[in-house]
């Protein structure tokens, strides 16, 4: 009892081979698209590499790149095979390779599916990485004289301006760290000395934020210093003022950005997976129908094509037996010879 048996005339077989040839070439193009999507994601993650802590998130773009390249190769081979299948004499060349090819491609489509699912699962790791990375970056904002960290100020400022965000969770993160380097603090002034003394760790903390947190949509010139002090500014109320600074935290802004990219990529990979699966089904039908034709002997006659020769359970049983007998081939047969 074959699974999904279909009857194929000679013209139907030829047409199937031609259509599959074209579809395989389209699949090569989708393989290239997968590769470039992986490359794009890799570049985007590396661009903000300074703001991400060491976490294992590079595996997603690497997987996509590998899958893309393998998809190109497999579908290129598939295209060649289908092109030759139109001519039955050429099919004999490929006869032995086709079944392993189909099995390999079947397992490969699983890889594509895993790649798609990974895109959606990266979310948690990415959030952790961004949380730690941004906290570090904000702490080292003032260290423009330390080699290796001297560009962190510029990176954080450009991040605020580009993604329209402030701080890690919000602008109040800047109140908890010293973001003005000691080089620019006049230690002889009373006010500075007071602030330093009032802090346990001797840090100069102020209720102010860097200029890059300023919201350009505010109707009022930006208030960066003494943000929590309502009396320091005319007609200003700290609790109700929403347009003065960017309200969103940079972690959330970056997370939204990357989630959006990865959801689009994930969707594209899923569509590619479905396409690959359908091409594989077509190739399987082509293979079985051509083999049946050769078995019947008459090359122009009709033949059956199927997905599996016997039912699913029987095929599984037969394959298990084959695997078991392979395992047993090394054992000595304990049954005495009659």
């Amino acid at each position, binding site marked *: 009892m074959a699974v999904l048996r279909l009857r194929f005339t000679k013209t139907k077989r030829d047409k199937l081979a031609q259509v599959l040839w074209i579809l395989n070439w389209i699949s090569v193009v989708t393989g290239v698209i997968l590769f470039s999507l992986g490359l794009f994601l890799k570049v985007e993650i590396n661009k903000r590499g300074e703001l991400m802590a060491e976490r294992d998130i590079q595996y997603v773009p690497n997987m996509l790149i590998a899958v893309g390249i393998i998809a190109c190769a497999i579908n290129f081979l598939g295209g060649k095979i289908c092109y030759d299948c139109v001519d039955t004499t050429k099919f004999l060349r490929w006869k032995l390779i086709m079944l392993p090819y189909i099995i390999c491609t079947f397992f490969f489509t699983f890889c594509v599916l895993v790649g798609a699912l990974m895109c959606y699962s990266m979310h948690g790791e990415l959030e952790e990485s961004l949380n730690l990375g941004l906290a570090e970056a904000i702490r080292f904002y003032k260290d423009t004289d330390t080699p290796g960290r001297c560009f962190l100020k*510029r990176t954080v400022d450009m991040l605020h301006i580009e993604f329209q965000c402030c701080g890690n969770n919000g602008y109040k993160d800047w109140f908890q760290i010293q973001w003005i380097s000691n080089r620019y603090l*006049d230690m002889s002034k009373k006010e500075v000395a007071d602030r330093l003394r009032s802090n346990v760790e001797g840090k100069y903390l102020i209720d102010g934020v860097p200029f890059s947190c300023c919201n350009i949509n505010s109707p*009022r010139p930006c208030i960066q210093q003494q943000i929590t002090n309502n009396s320091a500014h005319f007609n200003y109320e700290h609790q109700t003022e929403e347009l003065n600074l960017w309200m969103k935290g940079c972690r959330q802004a970056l997370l939204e950005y990357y989630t959006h990219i990865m959801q689009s990529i994930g969707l594209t990979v899923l569509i590619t997976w479905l396409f690959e699966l359908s091409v594989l089904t077509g190739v399987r039908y082509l293979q079985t129908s051509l083999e049946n034709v050769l078995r019947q002997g008459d090359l122009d006659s009709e033949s059956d094509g199927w997905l599996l020769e016997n039912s699913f359970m029987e095929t599984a049983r037969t394959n298990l037996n084959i695997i078991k007998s392979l395992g047993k081939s090394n054992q000595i047969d304990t049954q005495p010879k009659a």
Partner: protein
Amino acid sequence: MLLKIKFSQQRRVHLAQGLWLLSWMAVMWGVIIFCLGVYLKTELLRRAEVMDNTEIHVVPNILMMVGLASIGTNWVASRACQDSLDATRFPRWKVFLLAWFAVAAVLCCLLIAVVVLSYALQGSLEESLKVGLRNGIRFYKDTDVPGRCFQKETIDRLQMEFRCCGNSNFKDWFEVQWVNNRYLDFTSKDVKDRIRSNVDGRYLLDGVPFSCCNPASPRPCLQLQLTDNSAHYNYEYQSEELNLYSRGCRQALTDYFMELMNSTGPGVLSVVLIQLSVCLSLRYLQTAVEGAMALEDPEGDSEGYLLEKGVKETIEDLKANALKMLKFGQVDPNAAEGSSEAADAEKAEKTASPTPAS
């Protein structure tokens, strides 16, 4: 004949095929020129709020027009090519082709004019930006006046995007009140002093908006009391270069647009070259095919040329034709007298000489 070339039938066929490909390539280039014009126009429109006049828009307008016209003319050329090898269909192109050459010449002239204009209008662009930016900076504080409420956002975005400050430099902000009166505490002594010390009653300070801040500065941005060295620790106003953007926005925008227009220069010049080559090839094809049709054996060799007579003679011919067309409307007094005299002479002849019949 000017620049004669001999054409066999096969050469004519090759010429027609090559010209067909060349004219489709020219159509593609026409599309590219049109897209360049559209891109330039959108960039200019995006910054229209800081520009005073739209004189500079003539460059993208001409580019778009020429792009469209070039698509049309080169498509016509490809149709003429297709018909050129068919002896029944080619004769009706004769008059069209004359008009076509005129249009192609006009297009080439316009393209060269565009390249010249893009350099010549730089001064006008700078003037327009100067006035536009000055107004933008003046109305920066008017976020409550309808029609000007987005001026602040526009100027802030511009300064951050182009990394510039003010019109010529950051000192332009010292001459303008950029803090709205709504946010000034008029009971405070400092505010009252400042306003009284100014002739026009404006609140001027030696500070700039936050968008002038340079993120590349190693120090947190200093926006206020910029000229006062003692207001900030370890700060010297004259030698501080990294704190704010040192370039003026007028300079930044002019540089940006000039670069944009100069980068279209090579594209435009290559279109001119392609158009000229299409022109020349079509002329050769036309004369060769016409020559072949005039022969007894249409498949034989014919000559193709650029001009039938020499350059001087062709110009004289054109002048004579033009004058004839101009004179067409006028009544020629000499001719009228001459014709009446001739008529009289004829009558006299008739009466003088008896008719042979009688």
